[in-house]
């Protein structure tokens, strides 16, 4: 049912607006003075102060590749991440591991593994889907470059960023 | 006023005045008139009529011409299309103007009192102050200004306006009021008339 909203009856002081204007001026001046005296917690000054220490545990930064404790690259080039990636940022060129190699039994490894960081949306699907636990999202968020080529992370750069991860980590475990 | 400045301001006034007539875009005409009035105001100032000069800028350039511009823009008047020129009218009009100027020149050529240069008719401020003091010193502010050697132009205008001309001033006030009412009556859109032009 429709109902009528009563217009509030304004008193003379309210009709003049001056008291409320002064009240507003007082509030803004209060903010001004509090900030001048350093009483207000203000925005973080970015390049000098960083957020790193207070990043939450679930923060999803740049995706990286990891090697295990014996130095083997975990990725077996199954290309599941390439298929699941929503913006199609990942390009994998698989290759067979030659038989004389120490890890010939693994059979496949990526010859080239590229993640286009301009396209990456940091969704974490690749990490989720990886059966070998080879790809992880790190907490790096300041990924910058001056050219488009620079923004495409190749295998070398991805391992560099990812580093070594020991032991298998199940989703439900605490991240080591 | 030094002579070069006089000629400069006369040139500004007449040049932009001619532009008002010659330019085909009404906005250009209006703006030329503003500059022309600015030159005119400078001439007033050269004649020690500061108040009239300020009034010319304040009222004409600041208010009247803005009103003109406002109307021109609101009605979106474009440049005039070149129409068939009525030769008789143009020649006749030009002859009228030339005749007027020639006649004026003729009158002024025989006007002896007009040959006096400006510095031959100096303002005698101290004498005027003494005369005012002798006559009863009605408004001491003006006398003090005169004794300091400055011409209190605005105050003298005010004095004349509110003593000798107060009746006329009130009449002008009534005139302005009537004009205001008249403008409102004229410009009020009559609802009865159905305008078929889709405004």
């Amino acid at each position, binding site marked *: 049912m429709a109902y009528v909203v009563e217009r509030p009856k304004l008193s003379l002081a309210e009709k003049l607006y001056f008291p409320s204007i002064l009240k507003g001026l007082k509030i803004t001046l209060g903010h001004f003075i509090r900030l001048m005296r350093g009483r207000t917690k203000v925005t973080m000054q970015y390049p000098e102060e960083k957020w790193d220490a207070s990043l939450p545990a679930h923060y999803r930064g740049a995706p990286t590749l990891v090697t295990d404790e014996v130095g083997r690259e975990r990725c077996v080039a199954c290309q599941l991440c390439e298929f699941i990636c929503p913006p199609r940022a990942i390009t994998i060129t698989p290759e067979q591991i030659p038989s004389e190699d120490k890890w010939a039994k693994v059979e496949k490894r990526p010859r080239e593994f590229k993640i286009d960081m301009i396209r990456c949306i940091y969704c974490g699907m690749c990490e989720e889907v990886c059966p070998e636990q080879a790809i992880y999202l790190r907490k790096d968020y300041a990924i910058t470059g001056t050219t488009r080529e620079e923004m495409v992370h190749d295998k070398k750069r991805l391992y560099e960023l990812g580093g070594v991860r020991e032991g298998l980590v199940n989703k439900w475990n605490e991240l080591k | 006023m030094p002579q070069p400045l006089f000629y400069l301001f006369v040139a500004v006034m007449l040049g932009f005045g001619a532009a*008002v*007539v010659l330019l085909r875009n009404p906005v250009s005409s209006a703006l030329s008139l503003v500059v022309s009035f600015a030159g*005119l105001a400078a001439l007033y100032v050269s004649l020690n009529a500061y108040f009239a000069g300020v009034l010319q800028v304040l009222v004409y350039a600041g208010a009247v011409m803005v009103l003109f511009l406002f109307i021109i823009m609101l009605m979106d008047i474009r440049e005039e299309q070149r129409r068939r020129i009525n030769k008789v009218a143009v020649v006749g009009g030009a002859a009228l103007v030339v005749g007027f100027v020639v006649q004026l020149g003729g009158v002024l050529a025989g006007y002896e009192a007009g040959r006096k240069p*400006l510095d031959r008719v100096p303002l005698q401020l101290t004498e*005027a102050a003494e005369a005012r003091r002798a006559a009863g010193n009605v408004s001491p502010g003006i006398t003090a200004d005169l004794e300091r050697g400055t011409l209190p132009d605005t105050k003298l205008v005010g004095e004349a306006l509110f003593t000798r001309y107060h009746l006329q001033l009130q009449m002008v006030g009534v005139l302005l009021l009537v004009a205001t009412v008249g403008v409102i009556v004229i410009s009020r859109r009559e609802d009865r008339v159905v305008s078929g032009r889709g405004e």
Partner: protein
Amino acid sequence: MVTLNDYLIASGLLFGIGLAGVVLRRNIIVIFMCLEMMLSAANLSLVAFSRFRPTGGLPDYDGQMLVFFIITVATAEVAVGLAIIVALFRTKRTVHVEDITSLSG
């Protein structure tokens, strides 16, 4: 030095330009502006006379009073005149004086 005649000639020329505009132009708004110019030209000669014929060491303020009243009346005239022009434009859709012929029967 500048003489009274110089001012009067300047004033007369301005008046002549205004007159030419009134006679030659066909845009009613420009005609109106030229009328203002003619009034101002008259004002200039009044101010010049007031300065060149001092009374008691001061400029003759009677002349400047007339200037003041002319400016005031001209302002009222502009307001009314522009209102009439707007009303005219609403009905005729033109500001060209040759198109406004209702009064010629």
